[in-house]
């Protein structure tokens, strides 16, 4: 299988666990925590994407040796 795809799947899986645990931590009610899970996961992915974009930008500008 494509290596990038495997890493993306592993990232998605670990993200889901991190978001689930944070949802449980911040919301005592199980049903509310589970309802908020998809939205939280989406925000987590968007945050990670933004961070990745910033890192790539920094790599190609500040850290660029070309």
């Amino acid at each position: 299988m494509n290596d990038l795809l495997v890493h993306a799947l592993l990232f998605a899986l670990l993200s889901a666990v991190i978001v689930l645990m944070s949802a449980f931590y911040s919301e005592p009610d199980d049903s509310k925590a589970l309802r908020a899970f998809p939205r939280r996961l989406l925000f987590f992915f968007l945050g990670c994407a933004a961070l990745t974009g910033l890192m790539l930008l920094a790599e190609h500008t500040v850290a660029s040796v070309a």
Partner: protein
Amino acid sequence: MPSGEPNVATLLTWFLPGAGHLYIGRATFGLVAFVLVEGLYLLGLKLSGGMGFEFLQPELRGPFAPALAPELGNLGALIYHMQSYGYGLPVPRPFPDTVVLGTTLTAISGVLNLCLMCHANFEARLPKDVHTGWKSPALPVLLTWICPGLGHWFQGRKLRGTLVFLSLVGCVVLGTILADASNLSRERHYYYWGGQVMAGAPALLLQLVWGAKSLNSYVPYGEAGLVFAAVAGMLNILAMLDVYGFAARRWEGSDSETEEPARSEDAANASDGGSAETTPSATAEVTA
């Protein structure tokens, strides 16, 4: 009136297991806790020959480097360990056969003392003659460390407990498979192991079974597996905080699930001419 200042009880327990309990007037409990937690650390020191910190590579060694380990939960013992053994002799020497068991025991001692700190902190908020007993918020914390999700089951939150168990234990097992068990060695991954051990018995059992496995080839997803297992352990700290908060709220009667019965009981007492000051804490084990 509280039996002591919670922060003082917590800090005292951090420096010396049982000292916080002595401070709040629980001398017997404190003595038993001291013997158990410090005994475990000393046994670990004996079995490992005090060489636990020598797992750290020379370039990582520093005055605070060992503090990023579960032993930090037992600060007094950690300082004693550092002062008495430190990083050992400047020349290489073989580790004793029981070094893995020894360093695991010192780590467990640190985690147990964290649970004791929770116990001392909560007991300090209560009057001297009121004890939480089996309803102590520290018990689900300990159970959650032993097995992720067990503390939630103990509190009757079975759906949450099951999901926590599947998520965290699943991550530890998947991480171990991905890393071909290379994540289970403290000597190989000192800091990651520290995170992983917070997942409790599942991580320790895997270490017991596969911890001695040698690596003969490159492990393609070794680092990913390492991250999975270590993150699962650290997320279990969130689960431990969750069960502590739930138990504390339930004890204080502010939890929504327990609030209504408590109110109706108060109302019944009031209508019967009973004391309106009845609170859920009145169900505590009151000792003379």
